[in-house]
């Protein structure tokens, strides 16, 4: 017989609150350690690019933020699906928790790309570029989902609308991935490949292998923090949280 206990436990805000509090310090510390190592390594201990010079060092924050912006959207859309299908309260909380963090990370991906574009392409922003435009759409999707949550009188209506938009917005994800292949783009295509040999020099790639998991973990930590806020809001009248609040101080 399949054991569904974990699924029911996942639906318990109290259990989730305790689990987040247990994991949060580890996730946060690992993220900060990885990011410190990767950023110092990338900024000071790698040789400059033979064409781009030192501006290429932006890669160590640009690629991780862009990758996590997309992965975060996947996670949010899955939460949206679970929230619609099973009407699971925790899934709606996850949707609300991921949206602001995803928006912040996407904004960073766009900003770091712009300041990399200026010395490399001669422009901060190019409207004709499909990769840039589709990432901007991703940013607006995150913002739209945040706004929809608050736009409804009843909480449930906002949750459903936001979940539906999150699902509809997933059509943008393959467009972002394929934008550099489908349309002529200033943005280069991926140079780290899993199925064939990567076209980035190994010594330039190593710090990236540290900052990508670093930003993933930092994203996870920020979502856990947001999740705690959501739990505290929806459980504000429950006895267990009151006890916790009193014992904590």
């Amino acid at each position: 017989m399949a054991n569904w206990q974990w699924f029911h436990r996942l639906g318990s805000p109290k259990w989730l609150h305790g689990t987040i509090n247990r994991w949060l310090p580890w996730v946060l510390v690992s993220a900060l350690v990885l990011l410190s190592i990767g950023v110092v390594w990338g900024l000071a201990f790698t040789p400059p690019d033979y064409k781009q010079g030192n501006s290429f060092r932006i890669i160590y924050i640009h690629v991780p933020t862009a990758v996590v912006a997309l992965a975060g959207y996947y996670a949010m859309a899955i939460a949206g699906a679970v929230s619609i299908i099973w009407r699971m309260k925790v899934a709606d909380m996850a949707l609300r928790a991921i949206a602001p963090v995803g928006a912040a990370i996407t904004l960073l991906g766009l900003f770091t790309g712009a300041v990399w574009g200026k010395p490399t392409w001669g422009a901060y922003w190019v409207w004709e570029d499909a990769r840039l435009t589709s990432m901007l759409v991703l940013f607006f999707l995150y913002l739209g989902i945040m706004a929809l949550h608050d736009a409804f009188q009843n909480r449930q209506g906002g949750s459903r609308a936001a979940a539906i938009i999150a699902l509809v917005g997933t059509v943008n994800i393959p467009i972002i991935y394929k934008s550099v292949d489908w349309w002529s783009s200033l943005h280069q295509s991926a140079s780290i490949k899993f199925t064939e040999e990567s076209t980035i020099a190994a010594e330039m790639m190593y710090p990236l292998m540290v900052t990508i998991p670093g930003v993933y973990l930092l994203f996870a930590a920020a979502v856990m923090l947001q999740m705690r806020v959501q739990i505290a809001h929806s459980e504000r009248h429950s006895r267990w949280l009151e006890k916790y609040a009193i014992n904590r101080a």
Partner: protein
Amino acid sequence: MYFTSISELWHMAGHGSYVWAAYGASLIVLGASLLMPARAYRRQLRMIKAQSNSIDD
């Protein structure tokens, strides 16, 4: 280190302003996305505690 001095690291042969702007903005935005929910949560717990005290009194 690849650079021979701190000032060389800072200037990055003319690309310093772009590179440091990218990392500075990242520090601010990532820091804020951790600090803001952490503060909101502490505020919520304080309120729950205050309400509980006022009921008990």
